[in-house]
């Protein structure tokens, strides 16, 4: 039977790969939404570039998930495209941060900065994974995310310390996004198992370094770290905002309009 929604056997390894893949895909998708609409041609290219890097990372991670997923009934296996196009919103495992609507360029930059300041050291640490495939993905990704972090840091500083208007917009972006940053550092039992095997690192170990990076850049940007300590979560277990459903409706429309077709 041609199916239009897949089920996924979420072993810890598969779940891990899907979470990271979904982060990259959804954030990459959000960036791709701006293509042709950025404030300058240079920034249009840069955002597309980051988007492309993220979509590439997502593909590598989905491929890994497919490889590690126990085979389905009838020997069928999932693929990068079944994961991306045939899962419902509740099956997505990305951070809430990644699915938030773009808003203005300032919010796009701030979201990317907050994420890159986490994911770049994360992938750097993951280069030592006992899993050679993950280590290879990490090595490639880290080169890319190092650039994302540099690029967004520069813009956070430039806009934070630009005009009063740009300063206010960046501060507002930061306040809007802040409560979504905590989820990056969460781990759960599934991940703990993989940590114990040395396959993955503990994301919470990145927190202090992240905080230092963020504080340093915000200081140079004359922006103030929000006080609020309350952090949102839910994305990792499939509890998403209302925004993701709209994104998926658009993204998945074509493959789901014709089950089994090749595009």
């Amino acid at each position: 039977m041609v199916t239009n929604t897949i089920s996924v056997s979420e072993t810890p390894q598969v779940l891990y790969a899907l979470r990271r893949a979904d982060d990259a895909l959804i954030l990459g998708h959000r960036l791709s939404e701006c293509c042709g609409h950025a404030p300058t041609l240079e920034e249009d290219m840069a955002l597309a570039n980051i988007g492309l890097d993220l979509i590439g990372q997502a593909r590598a991670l989905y491929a890994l998930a497919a490889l590690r997923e126990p085979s389905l009934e009838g020997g069928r296996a999932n693929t990068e495209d079944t994961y991306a196009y045939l899962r419902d919103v509740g099956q997505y495992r990305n951070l809430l941060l990644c699915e938030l609507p773009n808003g203005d360029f300032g919010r796009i930059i701030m979201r990317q900065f907050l994420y890159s300041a986490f994911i770049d050291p994360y992938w750097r640490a993951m280069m030592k994974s006992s899993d050679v495939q993950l280590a290879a993905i990490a090595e490639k990704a880290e080169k890319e995310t190092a650039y994302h972090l540099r690029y967004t840091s520069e813009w956070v500083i430039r806009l934070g310390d630009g005009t009063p208007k740009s300063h206010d917009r960046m501060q507002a972006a930061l306040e809007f996004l802040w409560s979504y940053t905590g989820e990056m550092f969460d781990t759960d039992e599934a991940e703990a198992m993989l940590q114990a095997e040395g396959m993955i690192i503990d994301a919470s170990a990145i927190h202090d370094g992240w905080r230092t990076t963020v504080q340093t850049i915000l200081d140079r940007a004359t922006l103030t770290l929000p006080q609020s300590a309350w952090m949102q979560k839910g994305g990792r277990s499939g509890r998403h905002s209302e925004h993701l459903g709209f994104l998926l409706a658009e993204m998945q429309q074509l493959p789901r309009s014709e089950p089994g077709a090749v595009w």
Partner: protein
Amino acid sequence: AEKMANFQTRIDSEDRIEANDWMPEAYRRTLVRQISQHAHSEIIGQLPEGAWITRAPSLRRKAALLAKVQDECGHGLYLYAAAETLNASREALMDQLMEGKAKYSSIFNYPTMTWADIGAIGWLVDGAAIMNQIPLCRCSYGPYARAMIRVCKEESFHQRQGFEIMMTLAKGSARQKAMAQDALNRWWWPSLMMFGPPDTDSQHSDQSTRWKIKRFSNDELRQKFVDATVPQAQFLGLTLPDPDLRQDEVTGNWMYGEIDWEEFKQVIAGNGPCNQDRLASRRKAHEEGAWVREAAAAYAARQASRHAA
């Protein structure tokens, strides 16, 4: 007059004119107009394809399309840079675009209705663009010629991608094949119009030819394009929407039916299906980005004065 004669001698001997060389004002103006129109076409050309990035039906297609639209932005950048060597600022040129005073390729005023349009644009529109642009790689103005070499290389890659999308659809389900045929029906005639009015009506051409900015006439290029494309359509098993299409027994050229030049005129005049949308999108991006550009300028100025101090 002596300068002018020297200039024409250089042109005739296939010398490249460079930014700092003397050139007639009309040559400069012609180039600025042509290069900036070309740059605008790349930037506006991002929009119809950009509309499908978020709906591309596989991750491979999504990445390829995003990369392609990004390349178009890059082409716009090279071309504006080439125009800047002729003392035309990018900002002023883009203002002309947004005010509706500058032209861009009329093809981008047609909408991308389905995914097959992405295939059709790659195959036909990029195909026509390459046909137009390959001779420009030998244009007498060096910076433009060099920009075109880079552009052409990327576009032939895009063209192959587009053809491959069409092939996948043409070999797919009945619905996919119908989608491909429908896209071909809609994009075929506008693609032929991309080469500009028939030679009998074309302005500027004579002088441009003498200056080796233009090396083939509109109709010559159009014929080359048709001759290249007909066998590709046959290979795809799709039908070109032209009942008059037939191969000339003597020349082997594919003779095509009459082009609706009234439609072309209307699209150029601002009455295409998407002219209004395209300019509105560009203006919106520009207006919404104003605070960013202002902030960047303010920051840069402050940094400069700090360094100076």
